[in-house]
């Protein structure tokens, strides 16, 4: 992977064609035959009417107050405002590490870092109501941008190796939950119960947590499914197919409500954690199938070669098969992350305050908002669309960068 991989080959497409070429292009692409001309006219007509209706609604009819009044609710939910710096610190950590990853690995991480910097800069610049409108919040978002570049500079230094950055990420995933929730019984940091967490924060925690926790589980299940021990194999098949055979909402319902019915009273699992368990179990079954695909793609010759040099079964799997298989499934895992990210909305069914549920609560917070459902849902749809689109954009880059399917 070289950093030249990220130059823009599509710039040629973006350049508008010069006038005579335009006519040729039009004739070739839009009016090359009778039916096509009709289709083109129909398409232009419908784009005009739909577009006009949408724009008129968005700029004149819609009442955006439920969105603009206090956007902070969409970001962090009920997280206590005097402790909000802890969410901020977590974001700074993530920004810094993204920057470092960019410096270390270049390529695709550059895209991620750019997207993050761009998004945060936009958040820092656009005017907003409520607590989001305060100067401190604007400044905070803007500070993230230089922090990303600071990370980049550090990450580009020779002495910073990949294992530093990986360690940094691992450290942050361990530290952020404690930072957000508080340490111990609140003596060092006041405890902020997860029932107060909400909005995009929870959506991200469920999606990122779900995918990270499900990964090792999924790999084990995939290996188990190929195991020569029938008991293990049957268990893994049962688990994978059982989970894949039922809707996510039923799994969330099980982990949140049914599971709790059976736990001893003194073992009270946090509700957010229970939802996370549900997401993880669900995601693990799909990860397992993805990894299995990757395992099947490893040529048999590799295994035989490993055996030939005297590696035992365990070593062969760990050192030869898995690294190749996992590399092949990275794009599939990213795709799965995107769909898991969308699926976090289903946590509404078990009353987790993720983005969509916060939206619903905001609709109920003021009698004047009760009927503004369209505005709130369209806003949430737009947030998801932008984030998912950027992620799938990045994942297409990743696919190219890894050269998947070129072998």
């Amino acid at each position, binding site marked *: 992977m070289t950093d030249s991989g990220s130059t823009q080959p599509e710039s040629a497409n973006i350049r508008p064609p010069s006038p005579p070429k335009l006519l040729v292009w039009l004739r070739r*692409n*839009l009016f*090359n035959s009778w039916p*096509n001309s009709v*289709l*083109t006219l129909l*398409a*232009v007509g419908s*784009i005009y009417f739909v577009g006009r209706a949408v724009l008129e609604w968005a700029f004149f009819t819609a009442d955006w107050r439920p969105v603009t009044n206090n956007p902070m609710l969409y970001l962090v939910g009920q997280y206590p405002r005097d402790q909000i710096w802890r969410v901020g610190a977590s974001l700074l950590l993530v920004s810094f590490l993204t920057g470092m990853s960019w410096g270390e690995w270049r390529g695709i991480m550059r895209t991620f870092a750019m997207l993050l910097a761009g998004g945060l800069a936009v958040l820092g610049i656009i005017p907003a109501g409520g607590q989001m409108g305060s100067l401190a919040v604007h400044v905070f978002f803007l500070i993230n941008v230089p922090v990303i570049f600071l990370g980049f500079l550090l990450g580009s230094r020779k002495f910073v190796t990949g294992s530093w950055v990986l360690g940094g990420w691992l450290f942050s995933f361990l530290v952020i939950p404690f930072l957000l929730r508080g340490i111990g019984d609140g003596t060092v940091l006041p405890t902020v119960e997860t029932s107060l967490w909400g909005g995009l924060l929870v959506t991200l925690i469920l999606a990122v947590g779900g995918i990270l926790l499900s990964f090792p589980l999924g790999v084990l299940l995939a290996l188990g499914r190929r195991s*020569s*021990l*029938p*008991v*293990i194999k049957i*268990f893994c098949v049962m688990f994978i197919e*059982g989970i*894949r*055979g*039922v*809707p*996510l*909402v*039923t799994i969330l*319902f*099980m982990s949140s*409500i*049914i599971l709790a*019915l*059976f*736990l*001893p009273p003194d073992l009270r699992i946090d509700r957010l954690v229970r939802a996370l368990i549900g997401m993880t179990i669900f995601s693990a079954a799909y990860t397992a199938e993805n990894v299995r695909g990757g395992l099947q793609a490893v040529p048999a010759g590799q*295994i*035989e070669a490993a*055996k030939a040099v005297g590696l035992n079964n365990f070593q062969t799997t760990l050192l030869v098969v898995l690294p190749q298989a996992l590399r092949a499934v990275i794009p599939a895992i990213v795709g799965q992350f*995107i769909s898991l990210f*969308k*699926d*976090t*909305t*289903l946590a*509404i*069914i078990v009353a987790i305050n993720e983005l*969509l549920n916060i939206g619903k609560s905001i609709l109920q917070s003021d009698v004047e908002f009760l009927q503004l*459902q*369209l505005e709130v*849902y*369209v806003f*949430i*749809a737009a947030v*998801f*669309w932008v984030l*998912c*689109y950027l992620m*799938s954009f990045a994942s297409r880059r990743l696919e190219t960068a890894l050269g998947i399917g070129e072998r």
Partner: protein
Amino acid sequence: MSSSNSHRKSLTRESAIPLWRDERALTAAAQVISAIIFIGALIWVGVNLLEAAKQRGLSLGFDFINDPAGFPISEAVIPYDDSYTFGTAFLVGLLNTLKISIIGIVLATVLGTIVGLARLSTNWLVSRIALAYIELHRNIPLLVLLFIWYFAIFNKLPPTQESLEVPGLLYINQRGLYLSWPRLTETGSLFAVSLLVGLILAIIAWIYLRRLRKRSGHSTYYAGVSIAIILMSVVLGLALSEWQPLWIDTPVFEGFNFTGGLRLTPEFTALLVGLVMYTAAFIAEVVRGGIQAVDLGQTEAAKAVGLKQMQTLGLVIIPQAMRVIIPPLISQFLNLTKNTSLALAIGYADLFNVGRIMINQAGRAVPIFGMIMVTYLIISLITSLILNIYNRKIQISEKSA
């Protein structure tokens, strides 16, 4: 694996291997140990669950099934009101899920294919619109889309008195979509039976004569024969039913709502439209991928042997594309079926929705939840079985052809 094992064994002196290093013995031991651990864990979990349930006073029995449910359900395929049993209520939910899944799968396949082909259109604008459609749906959670469809679109349709209408045929308002619908008269069932028999005979004739043609190479007019059989059964049926097999049930505005005709409730329609549009975006990508996977040389070869464009598509491209398309298509169908569980959010009485109400009204979380899970598993199982059989058939016939 086995080849490498035997290979390895031949290299070592078998007699000298102590038991704890003999791979076969180790494997056998691992089998037994894993079995014991696994079964032990199962028993341990089971016993604990039962113990906890007993201590909590959780009822695990199914004796409530025959108690009156006491709650209304908005729409049902079979007769139901609140005096029916919990068992019937569950069945109503199940049938509603099946109804929307089957209709949804058919429509999503049609729409998905159209969008997928549009994506490949040589018309730049059409292809871009298809792309916009796909990107719009793939990047927004289905639940959010359903909220928008139901609350922002179907609920904003005009009230009953101001329905959008094609008089005598179609009425659309916020209470649903009402269609004039043909229904069987008293003698109509004879017509239906006759038509059914005719159809079956026609299909048998079609298959048999087509095989005959393949074997003998002679033309057997299989299409003509089949159509003739169907036409005859229609005439016979009409005669049997005294030339009045059907009557048209037209919706009439009465009191609060329209009565008569075929009614699709807004909840059903919104869920159907949402699911179909969402799934179609994924199916479109599957179809596009399948068609693009067919080598361009195939098209050229087909042209070279003189096939027309439609023939090329129908005889060369589609059969080959199907092999690539079917497996991911199956998983999309399963996704659609599972996604019907989001009906909860917009008030359609599907299996999960009714199940949850039952949990609340009967107070038996565990057994009802077990019923829901098992039912979904069985539905998934049957769907994937049917489609796997179909898939296997298509793959084999493809290879043999």
